[in-house]
């Protein structure tokens, strides 16, 4: 599996080049890759169906328990099949949808990266790798939403999604760590068996709050829902893939996955049911106010996610079964509808419901897909959505608490789903109207096939639930509920209360559809109220953050180098003083005086050399002289290193001093004349600060030397430098072998700094050109 993931990442980064080579056939390798993943995952199906689970471990940093482990069971297989299956269709669809786009290569890069990350999320068995893949989905979602990077709305929406889901991801990280501490393991497979231990721990509530923050932000639960409608700025294939079928369901996956570990308590149940219930009703309420196709779908998606969270919160077997069935049904029909919306947008150039009429004749294939998906959404008989809806009501009726309230929530959302289904499946395509919207061009097969396939899958799952869906869903439910499940999905339950409720929903939904235009007239009023919602708070906090950052920057980084240094030194001094104040043992001057006797004459001369150099430096009026003197002081320091047996450090110091002087000489004649910019009062202030700082550093160094260092490191490196590192020069062995990762970090910083310097210098040139 790790090979597949790595291959995916490699393929992703080859995308721009592939686009260069393949042009409009770029979609081929990516579709094939997604298909290969799907086929590979399908090979696990027989084993999983027999009740096996598979895990694969790859050690990464075993000393920190950070490993890349993969775990296949019913739940993860269901999700990963959904992801890769959708991946195939979306990769194909995107090729047609964004045909001729100059950035298509980049688009496939992001999309493939996302797919790989998403697979990583649902298959990870180690909480660290789970977190890494989780954040990677946020990052790729950011890149995909901001794909039309010249549009400000897209950039803002992308940033918003990143900030909301990214901070949720951080909360999740903390929550998972607490969970790991409470359960005594960082492996999900082990945690799954330690639910009681976790629930009894006092870390349970903090962990729960943090994990829920992560899941709710990702799955757009109220009050974090606001990023999802804005994320519709992304191209439609992205909306279909990330923001309805897969990524937003990562939160649901996490809740379902952790349900055996954290679920079952009142805190879990009530918080999930409350958040999910509010989101579900709020989502459909907002959906009624919008005429933009994608906004409409986005809000119904939020609502559906709310339903899924609610069902997970109920926690009983029928609810979780309903959750899984509804999840699959929703992915199928909502993905279809998004693709339909994309087709409509592509063909007519608008997504406004008020302008779209009678498209059925020109776009009958898309229309057929839309109608099938809409029927599934409304929960009409032979479709998979019908089974989902039946189970939904069943779960509400069998719920132990709040049964009536849950029923009401399910009824309201179901009703509006029916309305939206009428709007999309009937109103858009088949409703009779005089002036049909002109269709600008016909759609190629890559655009109409994917929605048709998805919609047909919805029908097939509904007609043959026993063969198509039941076995895998059983195993998925088993993973969530820990015990063997034997439920059977059937299309026809006979005449009972649930069927009655279903019919009532249909009728109510139709009635709402008839009055939907009148209902929409409330939109301006609601918009006013909604303006002060979470979205407004988000904007306020961003503006505040930027304002605060500007103010602080203006004070501590005002553009004068001396001021920067002053701030740094003063901060350091404050911190050191605070540390020394708190009862640290004081320096014993008396007992250290003997060390002065060991000072040798050449050391003294070197020290004495520095003083005239300093005096000269302060008094000189020439830039060249001051640079040369600085170099001289640096050389003196290098001599000290040699005297105390650190030739490597000395060589580096000598070379750096030389380089600094030479580089200065290079640009010397470009600099303005040497002037005194500060008043003598300021000079005295700087002198005092530097004298105090120097004195303090001396004190600290002496204090450090007062205590023998009880470190094993020196001995360890001394002994093992040659044995393990195969080198006599310990400094070098430490740098390139023992602590090579640190060095890698440092040289990365160096590289970034070089690019930064380049950018700053070139940017100033650019400014000069413009003015």
């Amino acid at each position, binding site marked *: 599996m790790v090979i597949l993931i790595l291959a995916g990442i490699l393929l992703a980064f080859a995308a721009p080049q592939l686009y260069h080579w393949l042009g409009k056939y770029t979609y081929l390798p990516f579709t094939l890759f997604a298909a290969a993943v799907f086929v590979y995952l399908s090979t696990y199906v027989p084993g999983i169906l027999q009740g096996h689970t598979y895990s694969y471990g790859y050690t990464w940093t075993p000393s920190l328990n950070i490993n890349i482990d993969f775990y296949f069971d019913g739940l993860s297989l269901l999700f990963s099949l959904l992801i890769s299956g959708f991946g195939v269709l979306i990769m194909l669809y995107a090729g047609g949808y964004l045909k001729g786009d100059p950035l298509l290569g980049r688009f496939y890069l992001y999309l493939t990266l996302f797919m790989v990350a998403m697979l990583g999320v649902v298959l990870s068995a180690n909480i660290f790798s789970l977190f890494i893949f989780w954040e990677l989905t946020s990052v790729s979602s950011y890149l995909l939403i901001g794909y039309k990077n010249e549009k400000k709305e897209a950039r803002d929406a992308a940033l918003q999604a990143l900030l909301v889901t990214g901070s949720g991801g951080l909360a999740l990280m903390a929550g998972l760590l607490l969970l790991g501490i409470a359960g005594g393991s960082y492996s999900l497979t082990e945690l799954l068996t330690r639910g009681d231990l976790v629930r009894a721990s006092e870390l349970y509530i903090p962990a729960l709050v943090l994990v829920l923050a992560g899941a709710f932000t990702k799955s757009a639960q109220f009050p974090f829902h606001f990023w999802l409608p804005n994320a519709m700025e992304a191209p439609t294939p992205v909306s279909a893939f990330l923001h309805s079928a897969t990524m937003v369901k990562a939160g649901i996956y996490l809740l379902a996955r952790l349900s055996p570990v954290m679920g079952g308590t009142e805190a879990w149940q009530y918080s999930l049911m409350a958040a999910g219930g509010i989101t579900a009703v709020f989502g459909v309420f907002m959906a009624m106010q919008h005429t933009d196709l994608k906004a409409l779908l986005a809000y119904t998606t939020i609502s559906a996610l709310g339903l899924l969270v609610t069902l997970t919160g109920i926690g009983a077997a029928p609810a979780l079964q309903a959750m899984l069935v509804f999840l699959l049904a929703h992915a199928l029909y909502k993905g279809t509808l998004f693709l339909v919306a994309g087709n409509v947008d592509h063909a007519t150039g608008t997504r406004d419901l008020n302008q779209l009429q009678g498209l059925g004749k020109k776009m009958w294939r898309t229309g057929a897909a839309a109608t099938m998906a809409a029927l599934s959404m409304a929960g009409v008989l032979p479709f998979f959505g019908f089974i989902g809806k039946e189970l939904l009501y069943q779960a509400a009726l069998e719920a132990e608490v709040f049964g009536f309230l849950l029923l009401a929530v399910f009824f309201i959302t179901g009703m509006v789903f029916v309305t939206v289904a009428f709007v999309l499946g009937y109103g858009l395509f088949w409703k009779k109207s005089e002036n049909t919207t002109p269709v600008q061009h016909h759609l190629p097969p890559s655009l109409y096939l994917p929605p048709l396939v998805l919609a047909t899958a919805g029908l097939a799952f509904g007609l043959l639930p026993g063969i198509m869906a039941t076995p895998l869903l059983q195993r998925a439910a088993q993973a969530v509920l820990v015990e063997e499940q034997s439920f059977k999905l059937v299309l026809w339950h006979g005449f009972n209360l649930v069927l009655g409720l279903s019919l009532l929903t249909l009728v109510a939904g139709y009635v709402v559809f008839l009055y939907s235009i009148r209902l929409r007239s409330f939109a301006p009023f609601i918009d006013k109220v909604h303006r002060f919602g979470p979205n407004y708070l988000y904007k306020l906090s961003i503006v505040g953050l930027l304002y605060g950052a500007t103010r602080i920057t203006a004070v501590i980084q005002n553009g004068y180098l001396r001021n920067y240094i002053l701030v740094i030194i003063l901060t350091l001094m404050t911190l050191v003083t605070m540390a020394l104040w708190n009862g640290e043992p004081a320096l014993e001057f008396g007992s250290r005086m003997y060390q002065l006797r060991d000072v040798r004459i050449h050391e003294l001369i070197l020290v004495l050399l520095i003083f005239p150099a300093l005096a000269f430096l302060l008094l000189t009026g020439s830039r060249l002289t001051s640079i040369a003197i600085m170099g001289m002081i640096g050389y003196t320091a290098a001599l000290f290193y040699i005297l105390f047996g650190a030739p490597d450090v000395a060589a580096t110091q000598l070379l750096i001093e030389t380089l600094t002087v030479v*580089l200065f000489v290079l640009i010397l004649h470009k600099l303005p004349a040497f002037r005194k910019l500060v008043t003598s009062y300021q000079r005295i202030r700087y002198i005092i600060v530097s004298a105090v700082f120097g004195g303090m550093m001396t004190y600290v160094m002496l204090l450090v030397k007062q205590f023998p260092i009880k470190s094993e490191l020196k001995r360890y490196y001394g002994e093992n430098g040659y044995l393990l590192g195969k080198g006599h020069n310990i400094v070098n062995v430490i740098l390139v072998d023992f602590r090579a990762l640190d060095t890698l970090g440092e*040289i990365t910083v160096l590289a970034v700094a070089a690019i930064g310097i380049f950018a700053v210098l070139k940017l100033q040139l650019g400014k000069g050109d413009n003015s």
Partner: protein
Amino acid sequence: MKTLILAVAIRILLPLFILFSLYILLRGHNHPGGGFIGGLICAIGFIFHTMAHGPGHTIASFFCICIYVQPRQTGQNKLSHLLRLLSANVVNRKKLKGNATYTLKLLQVDPLFIIASGLFFAASSGVAGLLLQQPYMTAYWADFYLPVFGKPGTPILFDFGVYLLVLGVILKITFVMAEE
């Protein structure tokens, strides 16, 4: 800065600088030295060259591969045209420098590229460990000695990456500042 002595001397010294820096790089594991210092020494050589000749000349002599082309003139047969190009590219390259009709820059190595490849070498030296199911950056050494080079191993590759990166960083800064 136009100083004749430096300009002449650096032409002779620069190969020595490079050789010496490589020597420092390779001896680093057992004696004072290493990639960082080696990179600095190599960069100083190039900086002196830049000081004496200007960045354009340094880039053209060491970081470019140029071939000289010229469209075929009327009345010139193919063979003599080819021969002419060949001689321009092999024998009298110097004479054609600055002659605009002849030059074609085939490949220019930007210092950023050196930085990137340094980072690549350093980072990829640790992959061997990953592939052998060990933690990233686990060192591997060969069992034989190469003449001059010594015992090859992944830390040498890492140090070489550091060398390239330091060289590239300083070259980039120098060229940008000198061109201004």
